[in-house]
């Protein structure tokens, strides 16, 4: 499969178009919503700020959520590619394998019992939770006869996802104050995030984006199976650790800002492969951009489906993702 974008020129052009679409979507995300604003107002909010309601909404709400949505979408898209390549499993993603749920649980635990409130603390606790969940899923998936197999890892990941989700719920049921604070966050949302929150996490995310791009050639070799990768001279232990660390940073950081948002990580890499084929040097950047676009679009949708209220964006991504998930399963990938 070469993907529908054949040849490097077409793929480069596609990438540029993708970036343009992402920029347009971000502008739309700033302009559209319950309080209708125009592009002119959006620009004036920064060039000629007059303290009006619209200008305040644009500066304090719309622009931050647009940027947060893009950053989180990029991160989840890349995390999905890394996990699918790492586990050689087409349904691997931070949400399916419990990495998001682990980060979510640790953060709720921090809020409930440790009085954690700053985004910096959220981030580090999110990293820790993501690492613990990923480590547990890996250990559980490797236990028993035959070592680590894709099916066992998937089951172990699903168990982790369920475990951490129910632990989180149990904690919230017994603690109503915490419930109010974290419920909307927990459903996955980019609304009400301050720019300073993004600024706190962004450096870690950007470093992980760059390293993931640099790892893309290694992903191609690893995709042939671990034995072949070793034969080709890959240091597979170093590679796996590096890739897993990137997943933890990307997923943990995303959860810290936006809560556990599902389905972006699983759907986006498949869409990218459909466009550009099997070469991870293209799949990684395409997944980044598609992930960003998809999350920002979902966030715009979240403003409209139950107007004047807002739905959590995680609900919208699930609405988009579920039919796609069924499509992947029906395609029979699991028969292999």
């Amino acid at each position: 499969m070469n993907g529908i974008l054949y040849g490097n020129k077409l793929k480069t052009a596609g990438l540029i178009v993708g970036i343009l679409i992402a920029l347009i979507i971000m502008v739309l995300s700033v302009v559209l919503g319950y309080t209708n604003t125009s592009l002119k107002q959006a620009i004036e909010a920064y060039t000629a700020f007059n303290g009006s309601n619209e200008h305040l909404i644009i500066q304090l709400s719309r622009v931050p959520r647009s940027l947060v949505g893009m950053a989180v979408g990029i991160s989840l898209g890349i995390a999905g590619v890394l996990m699918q390549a790492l586990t050689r499993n087409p349904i691997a993603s931070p949400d399916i394998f419990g990495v998001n749920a682990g980060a979510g649980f640790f953060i709720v635990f921090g809020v409930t019992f440790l009085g954690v409130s700053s985004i910096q603390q959220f981030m580090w606790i999110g990293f820790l939770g993501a690492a613990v969940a990923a480590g547990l899923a890996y250990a559980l998936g490797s236990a028993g006869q035959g070592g680590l197999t894709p099916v066992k890892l998937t089951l172990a990941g699903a168990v982790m996802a369920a475990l951490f989700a129910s632990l989180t719920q149990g904690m919230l049921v017994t603690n109503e104050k915490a419930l109010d604070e974290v419920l909307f966050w927990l459903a996955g949302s980019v609304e009400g995030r301050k720019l300073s929150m993004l600024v706190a996490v962004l450096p870690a995310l950007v470093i992980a984006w760059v390293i993931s791009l640099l790892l893309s050639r290694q992903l191609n070799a690893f995709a042939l199976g671990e034995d072949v990768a070793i034969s080709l001279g890959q240091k597979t232990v170093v590679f796996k650790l590096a890739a897993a660390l990137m997943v933890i940073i990307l997923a943990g950081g995303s959860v810290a800002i936006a809560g556990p948002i599902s389905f972006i990580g699983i759907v986006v890499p498949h869409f990218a492969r459909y466009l550009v084929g099997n070469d991870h040097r293209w799949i990684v950047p395409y997944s980044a951009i598609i992930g960003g676009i998809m999350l920002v679009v979902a966030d715009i949708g979240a403003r409209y489906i139950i107007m004047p209220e807002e739905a959590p964006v995680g609900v919208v991504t699930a609405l988009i993702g579920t039919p796609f998930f069924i499509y992947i399963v029906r395609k029979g990938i699991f028969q292999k």
Partner: protein
Amino acid sequence: MAVITTSNLTLAYGKEPIIDELNLQIPKGKITVLIGSNGCGKSTLLRSMARLLNPKGGHVLLNGKDVAKRSTKQVAKELAILPQGPIAPEGLTVLQLVKQGRFPYQSWLQQWSREDEEAVMNALDATNLLPFMETPVDSLSGGQRQRAWIAMTLAQGTETILLDEPTTYLDMTHQIEILDLLFELNEKEKRTIVMVLHDLNLACRYAHHIVAIQDKTVYAQGAPEEIMNEQLVEDVFQMASSVIPDPVFGTPMCIPYGKGRVVRHVNTPQYA
């Protein structure tokens, strides 16, 4: 001269060793075939020679140097292994697969070179896969698919190629096709081939050197004509048989005893 040497090599997955204190030399420029019953450790031995498995004790030397202590990328330029039943990612094309063979020659600074391109084209040519360059590996027939993987190891440009049961699951025609390909690579390019085969008759036909593994060590090794006999088959495979010269090729041929129809009895020729 030996290309691979094992010294006091001990291999194990758990506590119980599979290969115990083995000293073995693989001759350079020859086709060597490892034979033995299921689970005797021949695949394990092959994997350890290619650093896919770390020894519990002893060393594997490649061209005189300890494999475990060398840069894995450097080893990848001298030795390639094709594991048993490799699976290509869905939709990966033959060309994409074979290009991966150039992995050890690339880095972030050194991108695709003219030399890489030549190596890939030569590998596709040698395996008769040029017409299938853009075909997904998973839609090829079994024989073609195995050729595609062999092409990848060829593109790796190594002097030594290890193959773990390269003919398993192939029909007779394609088994011969793969073995002929390996035979030619050895004849024309003097590449050292080491492989695990289950078919004793084909092993005897294509190998210069046979290594029979039994009871965690080497039972016998040497040219097929010299070592293959009924006693070996009995000891290594726990099976009664007649070993006679192949009436067409003259290489040893093993006829297993068992049930089944008997049409006529003949006087079988014997090795002296």
